[in-house]
């Protein structure tokens, strides 16, 4: 199964939506929670609609619109999105009023917009798109599930044009709650209660891709593989799963020109460190979450980077931890995990 990427649209903590440069002057993540640089939505959404739309809906619809425009497609044949948390702001708004008002005097708007498929549905209404419309909501593999479905769709109907998106929003309230619950503690193999946990920087974002199964004249990159796995036994297990995945695609670790890992900072956690010095010890190795922050669908942001890397044959300095990439980039592997629960592998090729 493979698919060609012919359009991109990404709203993120970095200036990915409007800037022409490719992460030349990235903004450092300077706070525990980092919000997106949002564009002027009025260029994309009618003001009357805009007023009623929550932040994630605005970001999603706008990133999707840019992606479609770039790909030159008015009406996609499928809209498939992944979101780990869904419509956080509207859910909080409705839930808070249910509790505070003791179930009285409630406004339906935030309830209506609290459904996880709101963004995909809204895009369908805006485009009058009657086609397949799915939303996946599985934590840190939500985007990957949507990607797998997209790959299956284009293998079933190669001419199909699929709008694929990964999106999550953060709010101050959800950040406090999730931080209280330890969600952003950096993964460590053993919990040491005497030590203050290291925290990862949190972010958000909405990235969309236009895919097709038949080779177009121009494209960014090809999706050539995707796999997820759950709660691996140890680093050895992870290594053998990744090696097995590469083998299935006729590749060895040394065929991977750049590994874009989900580690959140230069140091990484114990799992990234073990593989970086193990299975991937001879690979050019990098990271991306210091640019977008940690969030469930951040691999969609990584795909945005990898697609541009493969198209322009450039590895931005900002993502490099080791090596710089060879003269020609053929295969980029995105490997992510969240708290060592769900792991994902996304293979992109030139």
């Amino acid at each position, binding site marked *: *199964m493979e698919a060609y990427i012919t359009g991109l649209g990404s709203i993120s903590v970095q200036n990915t939506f409007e800037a022409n440069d490719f992460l030349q002057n990235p903004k450092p993540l300077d706070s525990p929670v980092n919000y997106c640089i949002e564009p002027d939505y009025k260029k994309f959404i009618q003001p009357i609609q805009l007023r009623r739309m929550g932040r994630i809906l605005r970001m999603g619809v706008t990133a999707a619109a840019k992606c479609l425009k770039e790909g030159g497609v008015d009406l996609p044949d499928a*809209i498939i999105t992944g979101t*780990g*948390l*869904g419509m956080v702001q509207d859910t909080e708004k*409705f*839930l*808070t009023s*249910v*509790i505070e008002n*003791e*179930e*009285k005097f*409630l*406004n*339906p708007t935030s*309830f*209506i*917009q*609290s*459904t*996880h*498929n*709101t963004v*995909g*549905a*809204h895009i*369908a*209404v805006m*485009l*009058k*798109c*009657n*086609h*397949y*419309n*799915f*939303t*996946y*909501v*599985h*934590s840190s*593999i939500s985007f990957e*599930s949507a990607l*797998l*479905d997209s790959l*299956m769709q284009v*293998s*079933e109907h190669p001419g199909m044009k699929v709008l694929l998106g990964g999106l999550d929003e953060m709010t101050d*309230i959800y950040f*406090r*709650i*999730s931080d*209280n*619950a330890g*969600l952003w503690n950096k993964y460590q193999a053993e919990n040491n209660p005497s030590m203050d946990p290291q925290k990862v920087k949190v972010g958000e974002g909405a990235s969309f891709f236009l895919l097709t199964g038949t080779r177009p004249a121009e494209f960014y990159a090809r999706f050539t593989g995707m796999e*997820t796995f*759950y*709660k691996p036994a140890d680093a050895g297990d992870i290594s053998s799963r990744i090696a097995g995945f590469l083998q299935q695609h006729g590749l060895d670790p040394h065929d991977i020109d750049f590994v874009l890992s989900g580690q959140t900072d230069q140091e990484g956690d114990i799992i990234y460190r073990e593989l970086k010095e193990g299975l991937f010890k001879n690979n050019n190795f990098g990271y991306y979450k210091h640019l977008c922050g940690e969030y469930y669908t951040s691999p969609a942001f990584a795909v945005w980077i990898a697609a541009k890397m493969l198209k322009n044959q450039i590895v931005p300095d900002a993502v490099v931890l080791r090596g710089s990439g060879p003269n020609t980039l053929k295969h980029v592997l995105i490997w992510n995990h969240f708290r060592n*629960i769900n792991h994902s592998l996304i293979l992109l090729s030139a």
Partner: protein
Amino acid sequence: MPSRVVITGIGIITSIGNGISETLQSIRSLKSGIGPISILKTVHRENFPSGEIKLTDQELTELARPGVPATVTRTTLLGLIAAREAYISAGLKPGQKPDVKTGIVSATTVGGMDKTELHYFDFLNNKQHLEYVHTHDCCDNTQTIAEYLGAGDFMTTISTACSSSANAIMFGARLIRHGIVGRIIAGGTDALSKFTLNGFNTLKILDEKKCRPFSSDRMGLNLGEGAGFLVMESEQLAKRRNQEVLCELTGFANANDAYHQTASSPDGYGPFLAMKNALDLNGTDPREIGYINAHGTGTDNNDLTEGFAIEKIFLPAIPPVSSTKAFTGHTLGAAGAIEAVFSILSLKYGMILPNLNYSGKISELSFEPALKLQEGLEIRSVLSNSFGFGGNDSSLIFSKY
């Protein structure tokens, strides 16, 4: 794509029963599960009759033992009970490593909201009950079921409002057809919550009496809760292990109404497309459909537009149509899978499930729903509809194998 996808196991829990046998008994005695709320703590207990399962979380935990995690939501508990029944009925042993790659595709609309709404301000201000922050996510039920059954070679979770679990079944079938897994446990689960009860109340589509799907004086829906799961596998796999096949999934489609976030288009174009594309997938002749398990929520808008779409496809010979929502209430993310189980029972027993509480024909429609329970009919295929917010419309077709 070569492989045919067959169903080898089913499991269900709703307000009309825990398990297939209790469910059948309730259907045969026309016993609805809808009544006053007594377990969910809400000010609306007496206002809105609902299909609440009359078991506390503690009692559900007892039923689901062993293997239930200490921190568990009602949504996940319901999922565990239905998924385990499906798994065992497919001749599989929970906890034993499956013979082939086996995965889970689950669905829910609000995940662990039943616990979040109890503890929300504790999460925020008192840093208490924080374990339920982790179980709030939609994937909690999926991952817990995977660990409980020992079948997590693949997993994902779908949330597309009221069509969620029909879509889980559809995606599960496609995973099998693509050879990504040999077997999938697919379905969905949703517990009643104040969040959804009040949400539907703000939309003014909750009936204060028992819902009357496809009736002229219908006033809205009753909510329900529950879970349904199917075990689906490739035909070859079921044959290889000599497992009895309940039926085959011969059609499925998802389409979008692209009209409004909560209302369907006046002519039911999305529902029409879902049904038509499901029939077209394998070239099923509409005359082969012996029963339609409608979405039939009992709202003014749904039943009329679904009715129009059914007419457009099936006239002049509309098969028996009924909504089973008057038995269970609208179980949201679980409805597609629960009604898939009903559809499979319909095939197995040649059964038309009656449309309860009917009070008179919708004047704009040419047909009345099926009112009488019938059994022993020759039914080759059953169509099941699930339509959701965001115009998300799905149809599944189950056929005799």
